[in-house]
């Protein structure tokens, strides 16, 4: 029914507002000369919508929107695939979550990893971008190498590093050469989280480098010329020109890194599988374990809802906070 009303409305609007409205009005898949034929337009509009949008919309609704709704629904039930049927138990799962110290620990671990990765990868990405922002084959080669881990699967990266970081692994051998004694990077409960964060930093630094390089190259060179005439030294140039104009790059990196590390799963599974004990268990790992190993899908769904809320809140806060820092020029 709403479709039936639409063409009349659109015609009225364009009559009232005249030519100016045309750009904003509905059916510009048709040239303006055909627009007045209301009936044909209705048919065209629905068929076009069907042809162009329906498949994408259908599959998106089926595999993203409906699952989100189902997930929220499951989070209020005691759904367990091993038992037939399940019933709504209200906020019981959320009440259990509040008391579940393991889940609280998983949130803390995830936040630590996200924080370290975001700050360290941004800082190292910026430093390496400043390092290789020159023209020579040396810097080209460095850029290629910095970016390589980014195209590898987290599983592969995790395995490589698990061999580097085991007790008699390569890192401890190297430390031995220079007279330091290493530790068991993946089995020491007070270090393991930082080891995982370091591996993720190693993998995602190249992304930051590339984004910063693109941002650096978009800064107009006349700003630097003006600064040179005004007698700025290199530090002042960085402080007053480069750094403020890098803001868009920082925004992108921070948002991408935060979102990807908040759902970190692959690295942790391969490096430690949450161990030793549950020391390095992240939210995603906890969700998957609870859902597919312990079969408590209702309870796992409530964790998923919490994770989703966390990601939503954080990305909104970060985007608005960082956007404010960006300058127009």
């Amino acid at each position: 029914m709403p479709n039936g009303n639409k063409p009349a409305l659109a015609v009225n609007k364009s009559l009232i507002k005249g030519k100016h409205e045309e750009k904003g009005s509905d059916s510009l898949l048709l040239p303006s000369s055909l627009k007045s034929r209301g009936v044909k337009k209705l048919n065209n509009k629905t068929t076009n919508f069907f042809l162009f949008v329906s498949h994408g919309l259908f599959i998106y609704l089926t595999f993203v929107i409906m699952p989100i709704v189902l997930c929220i629904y499951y989070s209020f039930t005691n759904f367990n695939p091993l038992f037939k049927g399940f019933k709504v138990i209200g906020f019981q799962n959320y009440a259990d979550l509040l008391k579940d110290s393991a889940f609280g620990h998983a949130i803390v671990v995830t936040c630590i990893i996200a924080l370290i990765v975001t700050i360290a990868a941004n800082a190292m990405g910026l430093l390496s971008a400043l390092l290789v922002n020159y023209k020579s084959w040396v810097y080209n080669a460095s850029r290629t190498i910095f970016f390589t881990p980014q195209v590898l699967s987290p599983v592969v990266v995790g395995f490589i590093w698990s061999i580097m970081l085991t007790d008699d692994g390569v890192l401890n051998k190297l430390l031995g050469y220079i007279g330091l004694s290493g530790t068991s990077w993946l089995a020491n409960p007070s270090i393991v989280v930082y080891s995982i964060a370091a591996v993720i930093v190693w993998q995602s630094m190249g992304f930051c480098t590339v984004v910063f390089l693109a941002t650096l190259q978009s800064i107009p060179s006349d700003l630097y010329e003006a600064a040179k005439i005004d007698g700025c030294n290199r530090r002042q140039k960085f402080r007053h020109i480069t750094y403020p104009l890098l803001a868009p790059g920082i925004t992108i990196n921070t948002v991408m890194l935060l979102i990807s590390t908040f759902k970190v799963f692959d690295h942790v599974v391969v490096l430690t599988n949450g161990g030793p004990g549950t020391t390095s268990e992240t939210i995603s790992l906890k969700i998957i374990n609870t859902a597919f190993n312990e079969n408590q899908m209702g309870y796992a769904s409530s964790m998923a809802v919490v994770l989703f809320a966390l990601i939503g809140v954080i990305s909104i806060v970060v985007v608005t906070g960082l956007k404010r820092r960006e300058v127009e020029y």
Partner: protein
Amino acid sequence: MLLKWSSKAHALFTVCVTVVFFLPLYLVLINIFKDSKQVMGDPLGFPTSFTLANIRSVLTRPDHLIYTSMWNSTLITALSVCVVIVSSSMVAYYLVRNDSKKSRLLLVFFLFGLMVPTTIILIPVVKVLIAVHLMSTKTGLIAFYMGYYVPFGIFMYSGFIRTIPRELDEAAAIDGSSPLRTFWRIIFPLLGPCTSSVIIFIGLWVWNDFLNPLIIIGPIKGTTITAGIYRVIGQYSVNWGEMFAMMFLASLPIIFLYLALQRKFVEGITSGSLKG
């Protein structure tokens, strides 16, 4: 004179940093060609006796893991990328060209999907796939990827289509071309740069994805290469040489494509993210 010296020092410093950064990858490359004794005793040295035994033993596994999972991965990646491109470019075209409040809302509704991590929707997705009898099949996995990555495709294409002049559509329509024909014959060929970014992004994500194939395809009907490595790697816990050979072979297509199309990779990734 001083300037030249400092630029040399800068280059040297860059090389040092790069070497340290490259160390883990060097470890993989060098240990593939060593026998297991030297791998354990001297992991960082050059191979004393060059051997291809590690690669050979991975390639001649009795379960043909490399061949079947490589084929599965290629098939799944190629098909997912294709369906995402077809679907999302059409949706983006319609929504951008019919600029009304409704289609702007619909666009925002689609872009909301960019924020959803797979861990959150995986439990219900399994339920949905069981309901439509697509659980444990490649088709099911591809359908899921399509739904999950269509928002990203729309995000990329909608930005790009805005830069293409509307007069092209109108000229084609006056010549009697239907919207569908106009899109595929005239607009889509102009979207090349955007399409290549989408191919690179989604291709990488799907090829490297681990959790979804592990759970959706399951162990029975073959796996993708990433999930396959994870399954069998336990067998190699003592033989690093073979393990590295396996990981090397699994990443070879991606590494090769990356080195060949490096400029495109970097452009794709920056254009995609800088726009947002």
